């Protein structure tokens, strides 16, 4: 369990120290987290007590990782009513953190007025969101990332969904949530953009869908054959 004060202290650390922070994070991971001397070095350089570091190495490593990675940390689709329609986590968040994040962000984003900007500062990170009909598409990025580009990525994703489902609506994403995930996995990987061509994504998804279809047909034809043979 991570201690509250430590967490807030970290959020207060200024941006210049982030690099230091991250380097120390590496050292910690190199020493397999438990190395006392690495923790002490970190204590000296970034001012987090060694005792705290070695008590919560997982938390700090996750945090270092998040700080280091200039990327999309997670993708969230929330409906107008606050129901989660899709979540994808590219940075390590424990189950508990995930629920907390969703609750917190839902509260912030759903309450924002219609004509405001699409960015929210949130716990040292930025959340870019955009509303399409009844759905809010949210992506969490770093302070340094290009918010406008992320808006474009969201739109890119929506257009691909739109093409795949043929004017997509919330119900499509509910009943075919796994397909939405497949599409997202062709678009983003490791929190980075993978493909800028909508056509290519569509082609890859179609190819894999047809693989599934063939497998199904084969399975049913085999069971037919077996059924006939055993008749």
């Amino acid at each position, binding site marked *: 369990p991570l201690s509250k004060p430590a967490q807030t202290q970290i959020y207060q650390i200024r941006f210049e120290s982030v690099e230091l922070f991250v380097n120390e994070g590496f050292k910690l*991971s190199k020493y397999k987290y438990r190395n006392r001397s690495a923790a002490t070095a970190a*204590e000296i350089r970034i001012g987090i007590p060694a005792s705290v570091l070695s008590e919560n190495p997982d938390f700090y490593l996750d945090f270092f990782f998040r700080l280091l990675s200039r990327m999309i940390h997670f993708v969230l689709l929330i409906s107008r009513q606050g129901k989660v329609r899709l979540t994808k986590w590219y940075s390590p968040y424990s189950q508990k953190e995930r629920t907390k994040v969703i609750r917190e962000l839902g509260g912030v984003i759903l309450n924002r007025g219609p004509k405001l900007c699409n960015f929210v500062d949130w716990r040292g990170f930025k959340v870019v969101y955009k509303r399409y009909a009844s759905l809010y598409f949210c992506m969490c990025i770093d302070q340094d990332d*290009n918010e*406008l580009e992320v808006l*474009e990525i969201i739109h890119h994703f929506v257009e691909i969904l739109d093409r795949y489902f043929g004017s997509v609506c919330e119900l499509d994403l509910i009943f075919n949530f796994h397909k939405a995930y*497949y599409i997202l996995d062709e678009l983003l*990987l490791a929190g980075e953009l993978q*493909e800028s*061509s*909508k056509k290519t994504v569509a082609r890859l998804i179609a190819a894999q869908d047809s693989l599934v279809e063939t497998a199904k047909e084969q399975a049913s034809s085999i069971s037919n054959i077996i059924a006939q043979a055993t008749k």
Partner: protein
Amino acid sequence: MNPFSSGTRLRDMIRAIRSCKTAAEERAVVRKECAAIRAAISENDQDYRHRNLAKLMFIHMLGYPTHFGQMECLKLIASSGFPEKRIGYLGLMLLLDERQEVLMLVTNSLKQDLNHSNQYIIGLALCALGNICSAEMARDLAPEVERLLQFRDPNIRKKAALCSIRIIKKVPDLAENFINPAASLLREKHHGVLITGVQLCTDLCKVSSEALEYFREKCTEGLVKTLKDMANSPYAPEYDIAGITDPFLHIRLLKLLRILGQGDADASDCMNDILAQVATKIESNKNAGNAILYECVGTIMSIEDNGGLRVLAINILGRFLSNRDNNIRYVALNMLMKAITVDAQAVQRHRATILECVKDSDASIRKKALDLVYLLVNESNVKPLTKELIESLEASDQEFKGVLTAKICSLVEKFSPEKIWYIDQMLKVLSEAGNFVKDEVWHALIVVISNASDLHGYSVRALYRAFQTSTEQETLVRVAVWCIGEYGDMLVNNVGMLDIEEPITVTESDAVDALEVSIKRLNSDLTTKAMALIALLKLSSRFPSCSERIKDIILQNKRSFVLELQQRSIEFNCILQKHQNIRSALVERMPVLDEATFSGRRAGSLPTSVSTSTGTARNLPNGIAKPAAAPVADLLDLSSSDAPAPSSSGGDFLQDLLGVDLSPASAPPGTSQPPKADDKASLVNLNGLASLTSLSPNATSASPAPMMDLLDGFGPSPQKKEENGPAYPSLVAYESSTLRMTFNISKQPGNPQITLIQAIFTNLSPNVYNDFLFQAAVPKFLQLHLDPASSNTLPASGNGSIIQSMKVTNSQHGKKSLVMRIRIAYKINNKDVLEEGQVSNFPRDL
């Protein structure tokens, strides 16, 4: 087949869940489904495994626990068919995170799939690896991923590139293996591969300086050329967004160029032209174009200086700032914040627009703009900017007021050119948003007012005026109440009028009215009311005409349900009724509060720095360890730095102010200070004879009597004291058959350590003493100062006396009492006589 597991299809389950009216209904449906799935799992049912997993994923998304399905993912991944693997990997990424031990079990399956003959299966494995691999897995599977960077199908190459990013972030040691393959990806034509390749290079540069050097040397020119080709490319429908070919690639190239150009003049030089081209040619009417411009500005700001480009960039930001689109304004503010370190002058030019943004209706923009303004303020522009900020305070909503107030207070404190300006601005903030002002801020204001002796009158009048108009702001009321208590006479008599002030007529009863209002105000909190009571006590001696009324008001609180108020009311009433003689001394104006001590304590007690705030205990000379944040007594021992500090707990500065209010006038605190019972007890000692102790709540309720005793034990009777004058009875310090020495002891107000002693020598013999000389010696913890004697001849038979004053400073005050050796030499008829002795019958606690 199990009757449960045959159950519903995925679609039916979703429908059933959606049709639930209440949360309880939904839980019931989910519970039933989960039971069925568990049953299927335990029966090792293969036919419906993928369907069950899909259901579990949906249930997981609703927030129910699904850990029991984790092993199913592994089984599906291990099966041979593509459909099973596809759903298995999806489940793996959704239901597990990298911390779970189960994940290690999948390493082997991943390895096999990375070597599979079907490229889509390789794709699935790469995707899972890239999204959730742990450091151990990264180490194990890095060679496979490295090999796949050269795979024949570009779609695998791009996945492998992003997967490599995850691997080098997890295990930076592996970075060097990826440098060469990454560089070769930069030469590709396929956009997907190019995008991911550029991204991989960017991340390699971040984790390895070796990679940075390599790419800077080998790839800068190539990247510039790629960007140039892109910028000049004809319409490409597949990648076109708003008339621009592949903005995503544009942005990633600019990002990598930024890292390569940072700190390297040659590389920066190499990219100047293309940056200028992008900055001027890209259309800014669509979001995609703006995204590129934004990235380009960032790159220009980061690479080595080129004057012309910087101007271009600042101009773009200026255009952004005046854009109607909120998103664009937001990113402009964001970028200006970075630009301020590069070219503060240029940012200052946009000050007016930025200030407008502080009043924007969008909270995100307001916050960004405020952060920026905060950076813009310096000594020369603090006045106009603060004025603007205070104006926007009026317009802002509750949530933002808190942030804004904190920022304004911090600015005003940091840059204030003169005290009167500081007081003025703080007054404005207090009247506008006093409820948002933090305690230490208004404490600081009181300290400043107390230190500005020429502004006492001005402050109290200004506060009185502000108080009349806005009584809703708690902290304003508090500061006003404090000042009226201290400087009430200046309010009424218009003392220290400044030229800029308008005269104001306040009668004594008006001032008392103000205090009464603040006590009776419904929403006043305890602190305010308590402060008002003290202020009233103080006014009772400043305004004799109102003292009856004040007594009434104080008495009204005698039955207060709030213990603190009740207690104060009773105590103060005692002072008013029984101790007229000491009252005026008791409620004298507070000595000037020490700014240095206060600010030092503030710095010490604020949790700003992690490393320094951990338990620094100052050791005082007398060996009492004082907690770092112990605030109380410092205000008292203004002159005596090495006095033992009464131990105190908590950071309750307010109690100090209040407790102190009473004491310093005539009371040397700590003379008989009993250990403090708890935070709430504020101790006040009166002349060292008795202590008026406001006991801790629990103690008071049990025994109200002792408190009265303490007060009444003040002396035999107050009347007698009036006749006797000094608070200590005179004592016969030395007596022999020929000589008597009497000490009259008194204390210096506000200085507990110092004892004034008047020695009176009386001749008991019939002979005249000539050349009379009194000498005294004291132990080390005391300091003795002897004044000259009134005479050196002592008349015979008590027909006169010699008087000599001395001053003893007790550095161990409160712990050790006075002791003194004496030697008296004189001549009787030219014959030397020497008398020696020791005085140890001093009253304790001197």
